[in-house]
């Protein structure tokens, strides 16, 4: 099982290493969203700093949709989806492998973006441990839910337009919780970030479990 997961994850990461889609397209897109917020808020430093956690996570969620697209497109291109069906790999391994690869890519984007908010928004990090812990929890959840809903849309031609309306409402709790946790870690709200961080991990655990359960049906049926 583990070797299958690593095989799939390694394959996706190798493809990313070759094509650099996450690094050269998704990460710049996320930074661009930050810059657009800067223009929209009239470069009001005080507001930008106050709203950093929320703006940061909105940027992450929007760019994650692109990363999920890419993860699905890799399989859809030359019919590799069918190859995976024919290979005898367990659907749960395929789900976990693709989730691991997606999480790794979103983490890279998240780290780039963290540099972005420190530079552009003058964000300060008061509690690094909380920040990193909540960041990882949130990205785990986004990766698991993203892979699950991505698999659902599989080779569908309409997936570009449906994925955002399907995935973003599902990620609403992640946005709420991660924004609160970051608010505490960056000192912009007087709230305890740790309960929110545990909510993020609960969400991630739930979606990992759901993905393992449902991926067989979805691989088969889409």
């Amino acid at each position, binding site marked *: 099982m583990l070797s299958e997961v690593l095989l799939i994850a390694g394959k996706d990461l190798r493809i990313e290493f070759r094509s650099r889609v996450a690094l050269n397209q998704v990460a710049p897109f996320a930074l661009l969203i930050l810059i657009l917020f800067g223009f929209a808020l009239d470069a009001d430093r005080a507001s930008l700093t106050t709203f950093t956690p929320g703006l940061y996570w909105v940027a992450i969620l929007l760019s994650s949709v692109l990363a999920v697209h890419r993860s699905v497109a890799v399989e859809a291109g030359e019919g590799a989806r069918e190859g995976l*069906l024919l290979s005898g790999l367990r659907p749960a391994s395929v789900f976990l492998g693709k989730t691991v690869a997606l999480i790794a890519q979103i983490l890279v984007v998240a780290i780039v973006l963290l540099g972005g908010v420190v530079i552009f928004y003058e964000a300060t990090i008061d509690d690094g441990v909380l920040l990193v812990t909540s960041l990882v929890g949130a990205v785990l959840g986004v990766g698991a839910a993203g892979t699950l809903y991505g698999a659902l849309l599989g080779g569908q031609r309409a997936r570009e337009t449906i994925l955002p309306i399907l995935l973003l409402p599902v990620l609403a709790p992640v946005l709420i919780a991660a924004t609160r946790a970051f608010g505490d870690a960056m000192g912009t709200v007087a709230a305890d970030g740790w309960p929110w961080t545990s909510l993020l991990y609960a969400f991630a655990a739930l979606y990992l479990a759901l993905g393992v359960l449902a991926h067989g049906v979805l691989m088969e049926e889409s």
Partner: protein
Amino acid sequence: MLLGRFPALAGATLQVEAGEAVLLQGPNGAGKSTLLRLCAGLLRPERGDAFVLGRDLHKDRRSVRNRIGYVGHQSMLYDDLTVEENVRFWGRAAGVERAQQDAAAARMQIEGRLFDVPVGRLSAGQRRRTAIAVAAARRPELWLLDEPHAGLDQSGRDIVDALITDAAAAGGAVLVASHELDRVEPVVHRRVTIAGGTATETPLDVTTAGPDASSAVENARPADITTGGLDASSAVENTDVV
């Protein structure tokens, strides 16, 4: 008013025995590819009986899939990975040993210089060779070949012909859809015409020297594709393949 559905096969009865290579011929859109995809367990038969390698396609497509070697129109390869990486990935995914992967690659003559080229930069013929090598590495019990000669050069075609002959001689079953009758007829035992969604036996124009089907290897379990059915997006009725 079928909302995009079309019965590709509507009453095809077909049986392929172990040790036998069968040619599927028929006009474009006759349902050859659909029949192959159905046998590969990639489509769900809508109605009728469908057995492949002794398994009922209505209930158990999963255990059929990793015993067949399917080569379709799409290469099922990753463009961003090299030939070697593709062969290794799909080999490991199917639990095939490295030596077996190398043997298949050598047989399709894609080892060496080509090995480090990303699949996205291959020609159509090289891509097809790689796809066949990936399938061959698994030593399938049933080969399902959809236009295997398309895009191949002369040596590639010869390799595919030899592959078909060897697979049947070793007790496997081969179902090959092709328009290149001259090419394929010498290496198959029977010919079946698919037209209007039905299958009819058509005598071969040339006499084959292949082994008699009845003397085919005893040990092989009948790989029956008994389909009396119809997929909603593409359909089959009464197909029997071993």
